[in-house]
């Protein structure tokens, strides 16, 4: 960029004419003004349409002007650049909208009362009630799923990295990859088919089992990556001192990579905490507090959101509760994410790169 501007000043005959650096901004501003004008004139009330018209005008304008001044190749380059920028802006819109709406509508009813009370006999269309039962249910289900899923995942990763040779390891690697892609509802249906065979009623732990299935491959993947980062010299040094392999793994390999493994597990927890489909099939939802995950239907935060939305027939009080529960869920997931990333940065093994 700096060489280009230098060349501009020198009026170099070897370079073709080029547009000044401010030209993209100028074209963008121009097309925005025209788009708003067209939108107002044609009576289009949707801001989305204005945006679309502006984007199209911007790209066409860039191509036209650049093609006249700089030539076709440069014009194509400029169009590609602007398309990439437009794509980026397009992707930011939904995220900003989602976060903004969730926060703005969520804070309406989110208070201590909301967090410490349950729905009980509050009708869907009435205000009041809260998510205490849902929080309890979510914590218990996700906690139990983690207790099952995390050790299995970590041990599998240890097997793949430290022991895995031959056909079994290859099969495990392949199926872990495939398992990552299992739709959550299929995991729920699997547990459901078991429950149908033993004719059981919905209960919290069944949901935990499905969540554990969804969690395992994620934990395996991330732990595997972390274990691979542990330098081989450390293992060799320990083995050369006569330390058995299992103690080497427990005392050298795992402590070295514990930060990354924790991060992976927390990200997996964040992922399953938001799963709704298996919980819908297996835990069923319950407006009352049920502290026992092994018996009777329980509530769950994502399921609560779905039920407030789908069973309320458009009652605003229910939508408000759904947004407030969404805000709680997003806050929980985001905090987990950020803490996990923080741990990853803090404990990252030095790879020498």
């Amino acid at each position: 960029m700096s060489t280009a501007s230098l060349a501009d000043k020198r009026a170099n005959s070897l370079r073709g004419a080029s547009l000044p650096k401010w030209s993209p901004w100028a074209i963008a501003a121009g097309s925005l003004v025209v788009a708003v004008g067209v939108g107002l004139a044609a009576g289009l009330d949707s801001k989305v349409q204005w945006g679309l018209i502006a984007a199209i005008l911007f790209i066409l304008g860039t191509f036209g002007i650049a093609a006249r001044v700089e030539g076709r190749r440069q014009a194509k380059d400029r169009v590609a650049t602007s398309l990439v920028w437009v794509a980026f802006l397009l992707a930011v819109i939904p995220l900003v909208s989602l976060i903004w709406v969730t926060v703005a509508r969520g804070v309406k009813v989110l208070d201590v009362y909301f967090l410490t009370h349950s729905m009980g006999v509050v009708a869907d269309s009435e205000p009041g009630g809260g998510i205490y039962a849902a929080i309890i249910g979510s914590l218990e289900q996700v906690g139990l799923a983690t207790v099952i899923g995390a050790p299995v995942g970590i041990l599998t990763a240890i097997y793949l990295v430290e022991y895995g040779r031959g056909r079994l390891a290859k099969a495990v690697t392949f199926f872990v990859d495939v398992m990552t892609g299992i739709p959550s509802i299929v995991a729920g249906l699997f547990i459901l088919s078991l429950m149908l065979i033993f004719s059981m009623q919905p209960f919290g732990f069944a949901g935990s089992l499905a969540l554990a299935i969804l969690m395992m491959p994620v934990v395996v993947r991330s732990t595997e990556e972390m274990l691979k980062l542990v330098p081989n010299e450390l293992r060799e040094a320990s083995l050369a001192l006569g330390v058995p392999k299992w103690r080497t793994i427990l005392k050298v390999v795992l402590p070295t990579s514990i930060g990354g493994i924790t991060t992976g597990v927390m990200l997996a927890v964040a992922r399953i905490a938001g799963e709704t489909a298996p919980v819908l099939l297996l835990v069923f939802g319950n407006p009352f507090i049920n502290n026992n995950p092994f018996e009777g239907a329980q509530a769950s935060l994502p399921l609560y959101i779905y039920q407030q939305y789908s069973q309320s027939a458009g009652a605003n009080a229910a939508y408000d509760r759904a947004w407030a529960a969404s805000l709680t869920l997003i806050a929980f997931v985001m905090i987990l994410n950020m803490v996990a990333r923080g741990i990853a940065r803090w404990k990252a093994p030095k790879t020498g790169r």
Partner: protein
Amino acid sequence: MDISTQTTDALPPSPEPTLTEQARSARGASRPGDRVFLGLSRGSGILLLVIMAAIAVFLTYRASLAISKDHGNFLTTFEWNTNLTPPVFGIAVLAFGTVVSSVVAMAIAVPVSVAIALFITHYAPRRLAGPVAYVIDLLAAVPSIVYGLWGALILVPHMTGLYGWLDKYLGWTGVFDWQGGAPRSMLTVGLLLAIMILPIITNVSREVFRQVPQMHEEAALALGATRWEVIRMAVLPFGRSGVISASMLGLGRALGETMAVATVLSPTFDIQASLLDPGGGTFAQNIASKFSEATQDGRDALIASGLVLFVITLLVNGAARAIIARRKEYSGANA
């Protein structure tokens, strides 16, 4: 679980190893602790395989119960009436809806994600690239039910204008014909799914674009290529297989997405030629919406449709992984 009991049984009192024992272990026979640990970790690996097998076996078993009672054709019937005696149901509508919504999602998400991946690796000012990648990661962390709520309450009302516009100017194609119902149809679902699978496609593509050999790009620049020509001649050909497998991973997610579709779509059990008219359904959405009122037979029927979904996602994900694995072998870029 039987693994844990096995450990406590097998844990030895750990005697002081004698010289001969040490010599033997040096020759390759492992110590008891090693054997236990190996058994534990290998057992976990095997447990994963067993779970996968069990999913296939039990779903097939319940599905076979349902299909044997089905008085329609499971593959071609345009109906889902599991409360009739005998039940009549078929997956034709669901298969169509699943494919259509995923195709719409892919058509929107793949170009945008590739562009964002290029933005992060090649276009963005360095100070912006990191935060953008972080924001995309955050998009991936938002639970699907929140996307569903946002889609149903915010995106749907905003789609009316676009629907009207599409109907006015492209309605003659039939694909964009709109009768004027609520915009809770396949196009909105596809758009929402596109937003949801954007992060995964972007992240994988980004990793691939990062691995493009610097030499290739510099060679192209030295020949006087513009930035776009560098991308077209050096970056995209190198990353093509990576982008394909990333798209298929995204497709796998779009196929199986439940809650976002269940909240946004207003399902009817028929096939619509138009993307804008409410209608159709997807496998996952149908399971979630029909589950609460389903009887025992109805649940088995839903499990049967889930089995079809399972097989489809298995094939799509397997193909994606196979492409990634093949690429790893010859590119050497992952070293």
